[in-house]
């Protein structure tokens, strides 16, 4: 069937939209390589990437200091939660199913405001600010990990586990040899996307970040107003690359999972 006029128009729309998505990013990369404040560099340089490299390294480390423990703790919380949700029937299950999603739904400024006021209250203010910030990140990462893991456990063939145990394997062995290998890829993919969610968070982090602690997203926001635009561009390109690499690894892993 020859392409109709409408279909040709829709294709043109898709191409334009792809261009519109990519153009600002390419312009930003060009800007970060420009010696002067101009859209098309006349003088190419990489000096903005090394201009304050110790600050950039520090803020990458600050991001990881929040995100890595947050993902690790979220995993520990998500595992028993996912098992209970996928395998057992209990009172209040539907409510909890809805509750899991809450951190994804609540607007960041509302949750951030509520959390900083919680932190200001009584004994809670004795907790180190960084620990509280990590706690908040555990919450925003949790649904990203728990949702796919619950789905994987629901799809998993329970007969495998039953067969393993009826052949004499202990529950512990069955978990180690059957359950873990089946869901591990999903757990890894969920953790990678959780890491990306945490690294790219802005609103909640801005409310809770301790004084002098500058993870990448906050560092970039702070420098949008007063810093040299090429320098901010370079930092933004680094954060963009970090998140796309993390997500890219996640997508590749996810594709291998779905292929089996």
């Amino acid at each position, binding site marked *: 069937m020859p392409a109709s006029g409408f279909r040709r128009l829709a294709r043109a729309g898709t191409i334009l939209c792809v261009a519109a998505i990519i*153009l600002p990013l390419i312009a930003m990369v060009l800007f970060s390589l420009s010696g002067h404040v101009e859209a098309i560099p006349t003088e190419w340089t990489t000096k903005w990437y090394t201009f304050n490299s110790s600050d950039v390294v520090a803020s990458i480390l600050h991001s990881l200091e929040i995100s890595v423990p947050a993902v690790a703790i979220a995993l520990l919380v998500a595992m028993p939660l996912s098992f*209970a949700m996928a395998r057992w029937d209990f009172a209040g299950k539907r409510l909890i199913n809805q509750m899991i999603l809450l951190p994804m739904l609540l607007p960041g400024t509302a949750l951030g405001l509520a959390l900083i006021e919680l932190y200001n209250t009584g004994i809670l203010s004795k907790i180190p600010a960084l620990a509280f910030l990590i706690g908040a990140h555990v*919450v925003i990462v949790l649904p990203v990990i728990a949702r796919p893991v619950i789905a994987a456990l629901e799809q998993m063939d329970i007969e495998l586990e039953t067969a393993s145990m009826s052949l004499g394997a202990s529950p512990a062995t069955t978990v180690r040899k059957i359950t873990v290998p089946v869901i591990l890829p999903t757990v890894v993919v969920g953790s990678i996307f959780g890491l990306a969610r945490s*690294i790219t968070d802005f609103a909640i982090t801005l409310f809770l970040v301790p004084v002098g602690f500058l993870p990448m997203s906050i560092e970039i926001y702070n420098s949008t107003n007063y810093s040299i*635009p090429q320098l901010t561009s370079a930092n933004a390109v680094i*954060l*963009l690359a970090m998140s796309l690499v993390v997500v890219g690894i996640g997508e590749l892993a996810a594709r291998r999972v779905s292929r089996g």
Partner: protein
Amino acid sequence: MVAITDALQLDPAAPPAGAVPGARQHRNRRAYAALAPFLLLYGVLIVIPTVGLLVKSVSANDSADLEILNPKLLFHTSFTLVNYQALFTQEANVQTIVTTIVIALVAVALTVIVGTPISYQLAVDRVRLTGTASWVLSLPIYMPTVVIAFALVLLFGPNGILNAATSALGVPVWNISYTTIAVVLGTVYVLVPVYLRMLTAAFARVPGDLMDASMSLGAGELRTLLKVVLPVVRPTLLAAVILDFAFAVGMVEIALIVGGGPLNVPYLPVDILERSTTFAPDIPLTAAMAVVLVAIALIGQLLAGRLNKEASSSAR
């Protein structure tokens, strides 16, 4: 690990419900043991602060802590709707709410106009590079919104590539940085990928026979899309519109960075952020603003959930 082994040990051989007295209680207890860390985490960091914010918004306590955890303060608190009254009657606040809703509505409308034919094309038109286009168009979902916002500030600004292009062509200089138009376009940038993801999946579920039948009867492709395909995906389309609207209203990064702050483009989440960093923030009023955002997000999710259920039942 204890919970996991427990699951395997008990579940395959678990007695049917009601067979053994107390089996139900036992199962509930076992489940809640596994859920304990989750319930503790969400109880402390989601439920308490959200309820606390709600109580704060109907109180007269201009303090940045939660009275629900402070019995002495809670006892002396006088409850009032004056914060909501101020939010919906004071001119500056009303302007902020109106601007927020107008920007979100216009951005969603543009998203639907741009996104609907594109998601249709991505779903049914299997040509070379469709997969690549699909992938590129999904990227902004995972990109840091702060970075997107900054890239757009550069793009829209006097030194941006668009300005360089328009001035080279000799047309009036393009500089829309820190304007409402820039915030609308920036919001569209973030919304389109979310919209495409939902709609492309819905278009892909529409039976090909349906379209073939319509077109073999002589209807053009556009007519088929409007009269045959769109009615089928309508629940999903409405759900996507509602979710995108709630998402736009709650999103702070674009309005803050592309809009250049509340003095340029007033926006509800930006106002919350700004008030929290000033010396005279009026904390209960700020809480009322946040409660309005939460309400929009939760009502939106509820409506979208209903529509999605409708979509999946009509697909069957």
